[in-house]
């Protein structure tokens, strides 16, 4: 699994991995999308462009995940898969695949209030990149 969930007493977290910076961002986003909505119920019928910018890399991760959560809640769009097309320390351009929410068919998971900066980490290790993000549930 490119991502797993972190035990946190009140909330939950995502630990994501990737061979590249782009991949760790994709993994984290897929982890969040799977938490919001059971991935097997989401079809990849629609693709959307997502652009996010932030002052530095860790904040970029928070803003990227916050954007996906915002679109889930406000646009009622459920993502399943992501492709990061371009990424720097401060900007990300990606394409996400998914479909508009259908409450009859989609199985919802957790409602995510927000993406937090608590114990936030995006770092490069020997085998690639890893990230840790805690979500407020």
């Amino acid at each position: 699994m490119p991502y797993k969930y972190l035990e946190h007493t009140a909330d939950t977290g995502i630990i994501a991995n990737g061979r590249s910076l782009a991949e760790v961002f994709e993994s984290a986003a897929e982890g969040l999308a799977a938490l919001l909505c059971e991935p097997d119920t989401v079809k990849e019928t629609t693709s959307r462009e997502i652009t996010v910018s932030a002052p530095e890399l860790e904040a970029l991760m928070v803003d990227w995940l916050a954007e996906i959560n915002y679109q889930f809640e406000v646009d009622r769009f459920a993502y399943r898969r992501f492709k990061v097309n371009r990424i720097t320390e401060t900007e990300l351009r990606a394409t996400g695949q998914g479909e508009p929410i259908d409450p009859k068919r989609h199985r919802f998971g957790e409602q995510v209030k927000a993406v937090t900066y608590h114990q936030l980490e995006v770092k490069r290790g020997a085998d690639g990149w890893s990230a840790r993000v805690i979500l407020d549930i």
Partner: protein
Amino acid sequence: MARTTGAIRALKQIDETLWELPTSYKQGMRVPGRVFASERMMREAVEDQALEQMANVAQLPGIVGYSLAMPDIHWGYGFPIGGVAATRVPDGVISPGGVGFDINCGVRLVRTDLTEEEVRPRLETLISKLYANVPSGVGSEGMIRLSARDADEVMRRGASWAVARGYGVDEDLEVTEERGCMADADPDTVGERPRKRGAEQIGTLGSGNHFLEVQAVDQVFESKAADAMGITGRGQVVVMFHCGSRGFGHQICEDYVREISGMLPGYGISLPDRQLACAPVKSPEGRNYLRAMRCAANFAWANRQTILHATRESFEREFGRSWRQLGMHQVYDVSHNMAKIEEHEVEGKKSTLCVHRKGATRSFPPGHEDIPERYRAIGQPVLIPGDMGRYSFLCVGGPDALEKSWGSACHGAGRVQSRAAARRHLKGRDIRAELASRGIVAKSRGWASLAEEATEAYKDVEEVVRVCERAGLVRNVARLRPLGVITG
């Protein structure tokens, strides 16, 4: 749980219910930390991460007295949940993370003249009506869609906006903290995104630990205070619900944490946890956050006021009598995620403080001028929900609360198990049937949300309340037992 690491070993016991973490524990602590807890809780339930967070909060510029934690303390983000911190105005800071994402999350209690015997035969249909009228769960939408103008009115007027639309009466406002509206809320400090997130969410519970419960009074401990609140005795039916400012408040917090994070170097503030991002109370960012936070607080009160209306309507339809005939008067409404500018005594002098309560309830003692007149002699009602399988408590502000905790007490039981652990633990069990076998009707969107909120995931709220009472933060008035539960 391993009890061998850092913070827990550095604690010194002050008395039966109070423990202190000295400033020597961690570099940068400006004041000691203090936790209210029993010995047993300290041994078994207080996590190191939560104590670590209490030590981090002690580093906030301008913090006064102690970095405090209530007995329902648990690991949060930035602040521990159950954390209370007061900073000096004007040179102290305000931290959006010290209020939390769910700004003015709180609890409301409504009494009735109905008895358990009258309600029990109709419980299933009553809960179904409530479930239909008070939307809950992920992605739920309310019956009201706010126009841009309505939204500004909600932000400025809070619960009185809902009352003006016919959702309740003035009497409800009298028994709501701040009368359901904080002054100096400025819609201009709120961006587009919170408005969009909140547009369809008035009148909805949300998910997670938010709930609506039909309860019966189980035991009355203090009859004079109970009388004043319309609590008549064992078997009386009441309704309690818990929710906040929904996506509107979450987004305001998110937007201001982002903005304030970027300003930290400019104010010369360095912090051990980015989620503690803060700005001086009187700085432009600090002021703007407070104005926006008050908009979210008012949104939450409008939300709970609308849910009160939907609750009364559901009862009216089920029992064929008006809510007045059913005696459905609101007892009180408290906030447990908020920052407020309050006057407190510091070293014998009246001082203006910014009191952050993150998962802590205001708990003012008898005689305090901010308590509605009808409750002034007994103290401010403090509503403390437990888990859905056991009980909740109705308390009033205790004699020592101002001195010991800036007039604050616990806000609930406090989790002991993560959501994932609760799901693992309860796998294969029919929680709905188990509750039903104990006479509790439960309704939720799915199995997981019941499992995550099950009794096993929480501390025993009775012990939490007992610690608060021994410490003089509250006086216990009544225990309430669930009959029917709706979880988000």
